């Protein structure tokens, strides 16, 4: 079984983030520069900067590149004077997510570590600390697996187990997260000098780009505001888990428009049956980071998937 859900060939440097996906030729998906329309005819769904029509998806980045994703097999980009770096950044973000949906895959907004083939994923909105937590966990007996995107193949969810794929093999961390996590700083994420976010290589890198999804943890930061136990891991199920998981879907509106709500919710329902879903409530204060990270590390190391 392949380590990646699809392969790509591209006429620009995509960097090491999606290295396992890249082939020199004969790939499932072709990425190339070309003509991209300003609008799609008969769009069934539109946000401020994206449109979906049939098997076409269009995205315009403000003062940046435009992307047309078609039929799950082609991404055309119009550069609009932006650098390779910026084109690749947005291509591997929203456009990549749309590509996954077109190919029948479900990308989750999650970062993850891997231990003995078991993947432990963390999800939450931007700013929740997914990447920082995973980077820190990657220096304590766990290996980094993916940053920002975790890909689920509905066809590979079975009773009691679900396969998953790494969406991005490089991390993106804000400047102040390097001291917290001990990660190596690589190049800048953007060409804007004031944008202090960098690609990062965590302390330990897992070789695998796929694995069995063992737990999916939703990051929360509520207890400390509500005078409750500040660090808490709580398993959730049923409607609560489904609601939490829905929030974790990468660009929910893309999902609804491209694969449809029914298939999406059927997949999420199956995923809940196959994987432990839990919340991790913790302080976001830097002074508490080491302690709360240790709590999660210990939980993962103690966790026996067979006991579920």
């Amino acid at each position, binding site marked *: 079984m392949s380590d990646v859900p699809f392969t790509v060939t591209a006429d620009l440097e995509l960097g090491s983030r999606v290295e396992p996906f890249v082939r020199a030729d004969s790939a499932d998906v072709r990425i190339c520069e070309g003509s991209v329309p300003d609008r799609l005819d008969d769009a069934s769904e539109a*946000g*401020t*900067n*994206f449109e979906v029509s049939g098997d076409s998806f269009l*995205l315009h*980045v*403000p*003062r*940046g590149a435009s992307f047309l994703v078609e039929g799950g097999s082609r991404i055309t980009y119009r550069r609009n004077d932006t650098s390779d770096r910026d084109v690749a*950044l*947005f291509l591997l*973000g*929203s456009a990549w997510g749309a590509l996954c949906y077109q190919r029948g895959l479900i990308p989750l907004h999650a970062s993850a570590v891997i231990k003995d083939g078991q993947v432990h994923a963390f999800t939450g*909105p*931007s*700013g*929740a600390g997914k990447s920082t937590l995973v980077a820190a966990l990657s220096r304590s007996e766990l290996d980094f697996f993916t940053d920002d995107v975790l890909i689920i193949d509905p066809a590979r969810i079975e009773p009691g187990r679900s396969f998953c794929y790494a969406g991005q093999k490089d991390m*993106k961390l*804000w400047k*102040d*997260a390097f001291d917290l996590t001990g990660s190596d700083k690589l190049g800048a*994420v*953007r060409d*804007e000098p*004031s*944008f*202090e*976010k960098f690609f990062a290589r965590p302390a330990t890198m897992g070789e695998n780009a796929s694995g069995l999804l063992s737990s999916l943890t939703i990051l929360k*930061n*509520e207890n*400390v*505001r*509500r*005078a*409750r136990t500040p660090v808490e891991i709580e398993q959730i199920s049923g409607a609560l888990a489904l609601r939490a998981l829905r929030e974790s879907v990468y*660009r*929910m*509106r*893309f999902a609804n428009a491209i694969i449809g709500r029914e298939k999406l919710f059927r997949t999420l329902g199956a995923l809940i049956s196959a994987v432990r879903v839990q919340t991790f409530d913790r*302080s*976001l*204060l830097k002074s508490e980071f080491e302690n709360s990270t240790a709590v999660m590390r210990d939980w993962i190391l103690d966790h026996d998937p067979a006991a579920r």
Partner: protein
Amino acid sequence: MTRQPADRAPAPDGYLEKPIVWLASFPKSGNTWTRILLSNLLAHDYVDEDNFASLLGSISSNRRSFDQVTGLPSSDMTDDEIDLVRPDFYRALAAECTERQFVKVHDGYHDSDAGEPLFPADCSFGAIYLVRHPYDVAVSYANHQGHENFDRIVKQMNQADHIMAGGRQSQLRQRTLGWKGHYRSWHEQRAIPLLTIRYEDMLADTAACLKQMAAFLALDEGKDDAAITRAVEESRFEKLRAKEDAHGFREKPEKAGRFFNSGRSGDGRQRLSTEQRQRLYEHNREVMEELGYEP
């Protein structure tokens, strides 16, 4: 106190064409209290121990909502790039809603780099502007940030380029323009009808201020004295404090001891040094005088 410049358009009758009501203020000026008051007036059945403010609508800097509606990854964008999209983001929110939305705003009223106002008039019913004596704002804002370094707060309030959040934060960047700049920016714009309420007037006669807001928003509930009385009673500071003590408050910053502190007027005069008060007064004198705030 209501300020309606003669050349400002009156509030329109139909609000679904323009469903957004902005609750605009510099931080710690009574915005949350106003949301709670309006919630207890309009959506009382949905207020519970976990949900202090049940009004529909969020905050202008909601990053999660921005990412969903625009399809863009805001965490990979510069704050200025995000601002380019924000007017259309609010229009899209307005286009999708079936009821009036009350959106909290700590941004000053300003344009994006493309020269377009961040808050489009074409989807805005109006704005309620809350303002509070800057000395009291300083004390409350310091508590909100979890420290008592009033020098730092005074500097922020006097800075035209003062910003909140942005970058790695869970909320989008908000350019407050400083205390004076915030007030000026909202009161010099002519596109969005504006009602200004002083925090001190809310303390002195909460019911009267709530009625003013209801009238501005063309709410029938404003004519129901019993509903007004109940909303005021349910939103009393003592009640909110007790509720926070018992159940916590979701919007409390981690670093702050509690969200609902004294709520009083006059703390700043006692707790700021003469020099700190002087610096605030010298920088903000014109606006303070306009609002009747004594040094």
